């Protein structure tokens, strides 16, 4: 034991010494910070290269949430005046703060932090680096140099709900839900409203997995819904496991994040998908022109091209497709009546009165289910 101790002391001393030597080269560190300062002075310079950083919560290869964001990054990267970099699988909390700070320190002009749990760290780091622009996805805080942003994916959910409502034979739709937070609840409600618009008898059964990515658990949850008689499975997690479960049971499925048809070609009706490219490119253009503004909440819609649905599968009849596409065209033109009253909650009480539409604030804090959903928001 004594020997081990000695050895570690020796090793640590060595490591410390070496690191001190490295720290001695302080000018090097300065170098990394300088470009950021220069940038503030000359934002209008034409030939300026924009550096954009992206922080992801999961691996980009997951075909899910981070994959969708990374497609957006690639769109940015394709511009001729940009360089991009990303760090994947960054846990929320303390680790993300370090990663974000590291990016800010290295002279990135704009940093996209793409998971809810990065909110506080983003705000903290933004305060230390006022010359860097930050975009935080799916939260609610903002600051001088921080915007929060998200997309109205519920619009896509509504359309996928319409498809599902038309395709079900048992009138039971299964929804493998992630966490009981407003984003997920809003999606379920929109899905239910869509389904019941074309099929008033449809009921939506919800099972919570409390996971974002756990293929085994999510598959089991889908199976339990199939066993309960559901013949369409929708999902909110990043793994395609519920799709596979549906196909194995000979049922239909609705994917999320990206077009999941390749995982279950026989079951896949459509997917609610993200399309971050247009938004990210626009933000980069603004940074380049010096017109980027902080302190905003941006909630972009189908009209802006940020959310969409995947092409509907061959099993969907033409008349259903036409109906869904008509509604999609409406949404594309900016007409969004999804949460227009009268809308009742599970108890049958009218929550959104006739003639009114739920304001964004209520949608963002939604913690109740609409009529037709079976399950609890806990």
């Amino acid at each position, binding site marked *: 034991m004594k020997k081990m101790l000695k050895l570690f002391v020796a090793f640590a001393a060595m490591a410390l010494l070496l690191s001190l030597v490295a720290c001695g080269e302080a000018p090097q560190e300065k170098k990394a910070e300088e470009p950021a300062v220069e940038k503030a002075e000359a934002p209008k310079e034409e030939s300026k290269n924009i550096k954009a950083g992206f922080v992801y919560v999961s691996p980009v*290869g997951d075909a899910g949430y981070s994959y969708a964001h990374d497609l957006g990054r690639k769109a940015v990267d394709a511009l001729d005046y940009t360089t991009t970099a990303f760090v994947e699988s960054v846990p929320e909390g303390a680790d993300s703060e370090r990663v974000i700070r590291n990016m800010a320190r290295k002279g990135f002009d704009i940093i996209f932090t793409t998971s809810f749990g990065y909110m506080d760290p983003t705000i903290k780091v933004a305060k230390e680096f006022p010359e860097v622009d930050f975009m935080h996805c799916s939260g*609610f805080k903002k600051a001088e140099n921080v915007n929060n942003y998200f997309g109205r994916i519920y619009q896509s959910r509504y359309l996928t709900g319409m498809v599902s409502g038309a395709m079900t034979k048992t009138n039971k739709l299964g929804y493998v839900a992630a966490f009981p937070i407003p984003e997920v609840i809003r999606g379920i409600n929109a899905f239910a409203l869509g389904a019941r618009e074309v099929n008033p008898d449809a009921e939506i059964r919800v099972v919570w997995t409390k996971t974002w990515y756990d293929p085994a658990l999510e598959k089991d949850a889908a199976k339990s819904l199939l066993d309960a008689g559901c013949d369409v499975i929708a999902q909110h997690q990043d793994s395609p496991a519920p799709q596979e479960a549906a196909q194995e049971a000979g049922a239909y499925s609705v994917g999320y994040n990206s077009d999941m048809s390749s995982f279950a070609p026989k079951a896949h009706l459509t997917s609610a998908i993200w399309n971050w490219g247009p938004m990210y490119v626009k933000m980069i253009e603004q940074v380049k022109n010096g017109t980027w503004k902080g302190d905003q909440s941006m909630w972009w819609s189908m009209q802006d091209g940020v959310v969409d649905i995947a092409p509907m599968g061959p099993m969907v009849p033409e008349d259903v497709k036409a109906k869904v596409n008509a509604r999609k065209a409406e949404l594309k033109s900016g007409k969004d009546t999804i949460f227009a009253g009268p809308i009742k909650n599970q108890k049958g009480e009218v929550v959104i009165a006739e003639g009114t539409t739920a304001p964004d604030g209520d949608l963002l804090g939604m913690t109740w289910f609409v009529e037709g959903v079976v399950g609890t928001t806990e």
Partner: protein
Amino acid sequence: MFKIIKREEPWKWGALVILLGALLFSLAVSALLLVGQGKDVFEGLNILWQGSFGHLWALEGALLKAIPLFLCSLGVAVAFRMQIWNIGAEGQFALGAIGATWMALSFPDLPAVILMPLMFIMAFILGGTWALIPAILKLKLRVNEIISTLMLNYIAILLLDYLVFGVWKDPTSFGFPMTSEFSSNAIIHGIGGSKVHWGLLFCFVVGVGLWAFMRFTRLGYELQASGEGARVAKYAKIRYGMLVMFVMCLSGGFAGWAGCVETSAVLNRLQPSLMVGYGYTAIVVAWLARLEPLNIAFASFLLAALRVGVENLQLELQIPAAYGSILEGLILLSVLAGQFFLTYKLEPKRSQVK
């Protein structure tokens, strides 16, 4: 070709040779992986070094990450030394965070000198009590503590979820699972202008305290003696049952402190993203350090620095995150496997004729 012979005398400087050898081996394999990715090896290793130890900010990041690891690991090691296999540091960490949050939310206006100790005491009590459950189960019902401590982790995390999704949810959080932010009195602040917080000093005090306790008190001596096993302890008229309970309390309490420090200093509130597996990494650290407090300090720092460095590598060279896990796994595996050569040596087989 070779035969394996047990060493009769300990290998002088063997441990150092093995550690460096193992590090070199893992770095060499990682370098090959870099080549496989089509990256410049020397640039890669340099970036890894810069990101781990090469800058003040890198050291800062590593120290920050090492703090919870150290406390959890210390707790785990205390139990392991008595051959009590506490796999439940993760859950005890969660309970500690819950305890600290409970105090922070209940008495936000108390001055820090009173509130801080309250938080630490409650974190220790809850973390310790959580660890006491498997101890009692083990003593009274002979339930294997490996299973019970592991299972209690899940319960602890669900309890934490229940609280932040339910009764403690911040009303202004738009339904997101998190408590409201702690008052400034309940937050452990940075030392000077740096990111490194006073939890570091706390680690130092706890580490030295534990060392002194083990070395200079009767109870500490009994603990070490009981490490040889229950029968030895009973033979020496040591109250084994009492010791098991005490040691589990201590073990859970340390993990609880880690939870308290992490919630208060880093997140400033309780939320599910607090749980990133420090309790499990702590087990690896404890074994890597052979359960010695000072070694644990270095091992947690090294592991933390490695993780920080790999992030830098990811950012600069755009290699996949899995690379970091591979590198880490390689180092741990080769260091542990290298221990073999401490007790055995290889000798070239000579021909039969001597």
